[in-house]
């Protein structure tokens, strides 16, 4: 069996399922490239999830119910409401998490799926801010999944116009000072401050496109924030101007949009309405800084924490030559010899570790709690990186001492449940192939029980790296 087979299945894929390596071994690079053809093919439980608009409407109804029943003496919401709201959000969160990891545990397109997770993390919305836990998984399926093999500009626009992103980065009520509503507010000297919120604009520049050193200034942030005033969500209020639009869907609100031309990165944008923001995003997508930033992140994810500069340059050039089309970039990555030199160049994140364990065991959890519990324990709660920067992608970050200990504890717990079914040495051969070192093989073969052998296999450096 070829070394490339282990690299393809474990570093580019999500870890081998028993039997998968034989399939990959026929032609590892083709096996990867074939997964880029055609649309995403997620499992039924992902396709069966509700859409985010309907979930947002449910949640909004709940909030309105809360306001209506709020007691007059104190401002606290009624306890039974808090419980009901929490239960609803948690149900959605567990359902989406479960669907995501069940799909990842079984899919025959693991490279494709890894790309979905990669971009979902690049455009992270974190489930520590309401109502993100109820829609983060849906956002991944609606904004990311359909666009991972398309053009980056489309992916970018789909993400920035998704209600999850708009809400997460506070853009729905960012008001242009010279917009109709902004002028009215200042004329009436309303108590409430009316104006910009630069959160989304800044993070688009810093995290989604140019990167922090990509050559923008505070003035660019502010004018870009003006450009995307009005990018909002339908039905954002019960009545009044913010109630307009299809509830839970992207809504452009002319009434709060800053009129007139804006200058971003030295270029004047005189379009009106939503076109102005889309024009900026199109230009940002094809900016050389964006190409460099995305190429670095991809190479770091798939090749090494410190990716070779030549590879990054090659990917960035490919990206620009192809007008932001993503498949040629993935192809360049797969075809780069630098990507195949080292067998174990990455320390798995907890997310990678849990998915690859499930695949190795051929075990599909039927309860989202199991996954959330495991990843929470290891410091990577699903859809909850804690900031719009997403999860880091280096061994430096994931290499905490306690984090390794938690992996050991979890391996031991899982091995007790499923460990007696299979022989750990056979399983190591089946899922690691040529990446299973002789010393690990020997140590695991000497284990005092199947359960212990399975714990050693999962906790072994061979399995913990990809």
């Amino acid at each position, binding site marked *: 069996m070829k070394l490339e087979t282990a690299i393809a299945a474990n570093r580019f894929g999500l870890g081998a399922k028993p039997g998968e390596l034989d399939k990959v071994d026929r032609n590892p690079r083709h096996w990867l490239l074939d997964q880029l053809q055609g649309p995403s093919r997620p499992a039924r439980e992902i396709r069966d999830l509700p859409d985010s608009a309907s979930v947002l409407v449910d949640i909004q109804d709940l909030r309105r119910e809360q306001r209506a029943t709020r007691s007059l003496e104190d*401002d606290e919401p009624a306890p039974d409401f808090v419980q009901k709201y929490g239960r609803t959000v948690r149900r959605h969160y567990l359902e989406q998490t479960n669907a995501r990891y069940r799909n990842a545990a079984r899919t025959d397109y693991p490279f494709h799926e890894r790309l979905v997770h990669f971009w979902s993390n690049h455009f992270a919305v974190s489930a*520590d801010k309401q109502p993100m836990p109820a829609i983060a998984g849906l956002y991944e399926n609606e904004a990311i999944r359909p666009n991972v093999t398309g053009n980056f500009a489309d992916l970018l626009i789909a993400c920035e116009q998704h209600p999850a992103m708009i809400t997460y*980065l*506070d853009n729905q*009520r*960012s*008001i242009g000072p010279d917009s109709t509503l902004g002028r009215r507010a200042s004329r009436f000297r309303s*108590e*409430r*401050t*009316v*104006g*910009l*919120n*630069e*959160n989304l604009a*800044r993070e688009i520049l*810093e995290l989604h496109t140019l990167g*922090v050193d990509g050559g923008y200034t*505070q003035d660019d*942030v502010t004018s870009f924030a003006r450009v995307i005033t009005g990018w909002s969500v339908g039905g954002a209020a019960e009545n009044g101007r913010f109630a307009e639009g299809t509830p839970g869907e992207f809504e452009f609100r002319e009434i709060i949009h800053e009129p007139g031309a804006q200058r971003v990165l030295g270029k004047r944008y005189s379009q009106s309405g939503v076109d102005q923001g889309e024009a900026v995003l199109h230009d940002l997508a094809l900016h050389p800084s964006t190409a460099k930033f995305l190429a670095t992140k991809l190479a770091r994810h798939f090749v090494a924490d410190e990716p070779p500069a030549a590879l990054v340059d090659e990917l960035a050039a490919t990206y620009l030559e192809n007008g932001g089309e993503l498949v040629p970039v993935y192809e360049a990555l797969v075809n780069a010899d630098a990507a195949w030199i080292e067998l174990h160049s990455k*320390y798995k994140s907890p997310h990678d570790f849990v998915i690859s364990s499930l695949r190795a065991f051929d075990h599909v959890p039927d309860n989202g709690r199991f996954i959330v*519990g495991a990843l*929470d*324990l*290891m*410091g990577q709660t699903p859809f909850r990186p*804690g*900031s719009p*920067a997403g999860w880091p992608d280096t*061994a*430096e*970050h*994931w*290499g*905490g*001492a*306690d*984090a*390794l*200990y*938690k992996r*050991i*504890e*979890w*391996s*031991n*717990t899982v091995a007790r449940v499923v460990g007696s079914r299979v022989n750990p040495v056979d399983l190591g051969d089946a899922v690691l192939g040529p990446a299973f070192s002789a*010393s*690990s093989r020997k*140590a695991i073969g*000497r*284990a*005092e029980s199947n359960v*212990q052998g399975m*714990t*050693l296999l999962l*906790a072994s*450096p061979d399995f*913990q790296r990809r």
Partner: protein
Amino acid sequence: MVNRRDILRAAGAGLVASSIPGLALASANTEARFVLVILRGAADGLAIAPAYGDGNYARVRGELALSSREINKLDGIFGLHPALADIHDQYRQRQALIVHAVASPYRERSHFDGQDVLENGAAGVGMLRDGWLNRAIAPLGGSLGNEVAIAMAQNTPLVLRGDNSVTSWAPSGLPDAEDSTIERLQDLYAGDEFFAMRLVQALDAQAIAEADTGMTQMNSRGNEAQQMQTMAAATARFLRAKDGPRIAVLEAGGWDTHANQGTTSGALANRFEGLDAGVRTLREELGGTWSKTVMAIVTEFGRTVAVNGTRGTDHGTGTAAILVGGAVAGGRVLADWPGLRNSDLHQGRDLRPTTDLRSVFKGVLAEHLQLPDAEMHTSVFPDSAAAPSMRGLINSA
């Protein structure tokens, strides 16, 4: 009492040490305790310590201004947010001080770069790959398996990463692996330094946690205030353990208040409540050890002075830092106050920083942990001659 994990740790440390030349076994040589709390997301210094006595404060803060009746007064100019009640109590007992209009040398507005500079201790982003607190602890003794510093999380934040061995700990709900499994893993890891060292470090923390019956039952459930209290209680258990770590790092997120940050109540007030509960819990759980403790509560940068369009604040520059603990020479606000008129502000929008946060850290490291001055300006905080060590932060007693 010697426990199981202790034995495994010692054996493992021996195993690793024999493969890495020059690795000595030693415990910490200081009794001082230092807790660094990093508030991630840029906490609003003007909400932590409102400048109620500044004639421009109410005007520039608009609907987010707190009145002099709402705050807990510190002096004629500054107050503390009412949710920081325990810290205010400590202030009155001269065990807490506020440093205002403070910032790291970072002057842009990215959280992630800001945190990088706050933690790497260099003059700029990405200039160092390890943390200032890791570099600082070299003279404090400690060794692999006897770590001087602990990160209260699964993973180690940048500020503690580096050549000096540190450990980390977070609560677990899972059963412990059998001793024989750990022993076999030590063998399996013997040829792989990355894994071998981390297992020994983890076993150090496990040995302390196991010797303390309260800790094995801890879990990470509950709301944020409860989680903060759990982690503060665990921190105290580690810091008071005999031969345990002397330095701990805690992190808390959720300070990026772009929308509806609230005043006496609301999102930010809830964070303050959690933080305050954490300080109280740490103090109570530390008992007599509190008198030897300094806790520094810091954030990557501040927020805009003016309120934005969504009743929040955007990324700014100057902010406030809190020192609290029995060893703090408190009861004071240290501020070279820049003022809040538009012309006083950094780039017309942010509180202008007048104190370098590195000066505060240097003062604590020098006077509290007795670390040598010379290294402070070179290896710990390179190129920081412009940020002299702040003196008199610590009780001389």
